[in-house]
């Protein structure tokens, strides 16, 4: 395959960025999207041009590191992570536009790499269950209704990639936030801190510069783990309860 790439190049956070075009030949449809970029980078290195910086790690769709806007869509045209996208999703002669995640709360560090540490700070605000090591009761001491356990698992599969934010016209992280609130809120272990958690995490979310949710639904459409939109309803419901009862 012959491919033209339009890629956002930005040397660092302080400099201005711009789109650059690159031509690639002999791309196999068996390559993953990131392997295609590896080929580009080998070429650039040979030509003495700084390779394109992009984030990736497990390349198995589970670590959540990869983060590319491909033709305006987070992780590209398929419902999966960028690392699991393959070149067979494109056609010979295609032009592909590649940009970093777009959100004020995710500043660009270099080229296609953004800073997502705001997500860690949201978790620090309450995205955990307070239990010290070694003080846990026997695992069978607190049964969990299977339906709730399954629901908790379904939403705990969020990989914190940030696609929901990048896809949202408001730059909101409500899907990420709702997934964590729902995961911990479904379990008996999560009840004691349930209402303080939601208040604190939402406050941190807003403080980081993420936008508000207006139920557009782009987040769930872009989510590679198919986190459902109703976690945001759960988030709002818990927040209302918390505000009514004063945490």
């Amino acid at each position, binding site marked *: 395959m012959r491919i033209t790439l339009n890629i956002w190049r930005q040397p660092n956070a302080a400099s201005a960025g711009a789109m650059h075009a690159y031509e690639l030949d002999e791309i196999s449809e*068996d390559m993953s999207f990131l392997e295609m970029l590896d080929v580009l980078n080998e070429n650039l290195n040979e030509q003495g041009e700084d390779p394109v910086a992009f984030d990736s790690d497990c390349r198995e769709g589970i670590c959540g590191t990869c983060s590319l806007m491909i033709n305006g869509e987070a992780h590209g045209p398929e419902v999966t992570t960028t690392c699991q996208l393959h070149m067979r999703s494109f056609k010979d002669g295609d032009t592909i536009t590649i940009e970093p995640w777009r959100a004020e709360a995710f500043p660009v560090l270099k080229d296609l790499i953004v800073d997502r540490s705001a997500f860690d700070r949201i978790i620090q605000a309450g995205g955990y269950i307070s239990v010290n090591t070694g003080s846990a009761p026997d695992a069978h001491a607190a049964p969990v209704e299977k339906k709730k356990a399954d629901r908790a698992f379904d939403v705990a599969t969020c990989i914190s990639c940030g696609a929901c934010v990048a896809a949202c016209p408001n730059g909101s992280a409500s899907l990420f936030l709702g997934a964590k609130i729902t995961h911990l809120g479904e379990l008996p272990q999560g009840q004691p801190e349930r209402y303080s958690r939601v208040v604190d995490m939402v406050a941190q979310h807003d403080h980081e510069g993420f936008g508000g949710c207006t139920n557009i639904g782009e987040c769930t459409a872009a989510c590679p783990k198919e986190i459902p939109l109703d976690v945001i309803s759960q988030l709002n419901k818990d927040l209302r309860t918390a505000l009514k009862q004063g945490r």
Partner: protein
Amino acid sequence: MASITDPSHTTALNSPPVQVSDDARGYYTLGEPLVDPVAPTGPIQNRWTQRQFDNRLVNPANRRKLEVIMVGTGLAGGAAAATLGEAGYNVKSFCYQDSPRRAHSIAAQGGINAAKNYKEDGDSTFRLFYDTVKGGDYRSRESNVYRLAEVSANIIDQCVAQGVPFAREYGGLLDNRSFGGVQVSRTFYARGQTGQQLLIGAYQAMERQVAAGTVKQYTRHEMLEVVIVEGKARGIIARDMVTGEVETHLADVVVLATGGYGNVFFLSTNAMGSNVTAAWRAHRKGAYMANPCYTQIHPTCIPVTGDHQSKLTLMSESLRNDGRIWVPKNAADCEKHPSEIPEEDRDYYLERIYPSFGNLVPRDIASRQAKNMCDEGRGVGPAVKELAEDGTERWVRRGVYLDFADAIARMGRATVETKYGNLFDMYARITGEDPYSTPMRIYPAVHYVMGGLWVDYHLQSNIPGLFVTGEANFSDHGANRLGASALMQGLADGYFVLPNTIRDYLADGPFEKLDESHPDVVAAKADVEHRIATFLSINGTRSADSYHKELGRIMWEYCGMERSEAGLKKAIGMIQELKKDFWSNLKVLGTADSLNQSLEKAGRTADFIELGELMCIDALNRRESCGGHFRAESQTEDGEALRHDDEFAYVAAWEWGGEDGQPVLHKEDLIYTAIEMKQRSYK
């Protein structure tokens, strides 16, 4: 089982090995034997309890004055940082990823073992201990494995309390399944994403401590050197991967929880960034590297398709429960579509060779037989270019069929979809083929390593103050061939073992305040800066990646599943050539004071090359088939793996011999008192 009472004082059930064969003569020098100076004694079931009591305490007011550096944030590092933070120590946590939650533990699929006996199927601490020692081919320490089995039950309690959503039954209680070669149901799991859920539990516990101020988190930082002052580890030199700044961090103790080095093979199931640098820099500063050649090969990965490939993807081993593995009987059929190959022309080779275990033989056997089939020219799928035994290049098809046609006919497609749907989808996405209608193609791949820095019972390396946990140390489970063990050790080390052993060391602290201007600290930092400057100044023609790829091909051909004396010697020569070329012909663009991924790769590749050479020397020395590796010179009459307990029942701990010197081998004898060694058989 008579030994369960008191095997302590302790008649060894085996005698210390006496090595006769010495294939590696000329490649190493023999050092003093090694003993674990803190190995426990007494009845095996009391050893850990007694040790926790004997280890000295640090009172809470003093803990605030003590500083711990934790490198790595996977199951071992994340759990340990959280636990030490809770206890009140000052922890500085480092990872190269953009968030601690992305450590590669997250990719583990299958499950985590624990001797809970919730199924009342006869499980016990002793049985988990026994299975693990046996599964590790009797190349692990008894005391460590017993401790692992003992704390396994606490791990599940801890994780459930954190909100880890393990699979549950309708009654609300936890579900279990059984896993590779084990007859009890002791594996706890969260669908195919157990590692992810366990890691998020540890990560959240750690973030809680970040909020509490006991843990300080440094992301996008790579440790490039360990600081040793007066014989003790006192800090690290790390590079801020965004600004390029080379930073000095000092502490009372340093813990490495930096994972495994399977990426030495270039293609593996490891994350792209997983590397050996932290461990290797410590090795060069005097820490022993133990059993570096032990690699676990996983039999069910998606095969390589071409030169461009950057990594391999694992398909859960559970597929072997229902899939049937075959290759064409005639090499001439390999290019045909599988549907054109009639039943009588298919060779269900595992069922044929191992009628009692069939497709469920252990990982090493399934892997090796797949290799044999492809070596015979009966592999399927695209041919790939690889190194041949004689060092030339060859084209080989590296794939065997994993066929669900019978399972679909027996259970119906719907049932197969429920059981394995997500794996089938993943396969279809990567290969572009529909596994419901065309058999999957699989091939073994490097999964994880059991070698690592040598540690004593307290997880302390031979350098005082340098502790090593999880996959980064040499594993508790020896030459392991089982699943669901690595997660268990990571969390056991992180939550329960290290926090209890490190306090005995820290009871001597706080150590004398150290200044950044101390000559040893200055020298360590200068070394790092010099090394970075060297990479940038070579100005040759080849990228670090291209060297890494070449190293990987050498390692896989000669130090992978099957090894031979001639092959390993050849590999050592090739690696030495590669190393010379690397240092004269490397090309790294960009600058030191910026985010520079080429520079990061150069440093890691340089260390992988040196490690690769040591792995080959270790493999050359170990003239026995053990764990996942088949040593051509050591096989039974019918071609099965043959261990030599009389010669090799020891831990091979290698000391860095200097830039131009030879590595020094220290042997730690493995003495069994509770379990008698047995030869394995899967016929």
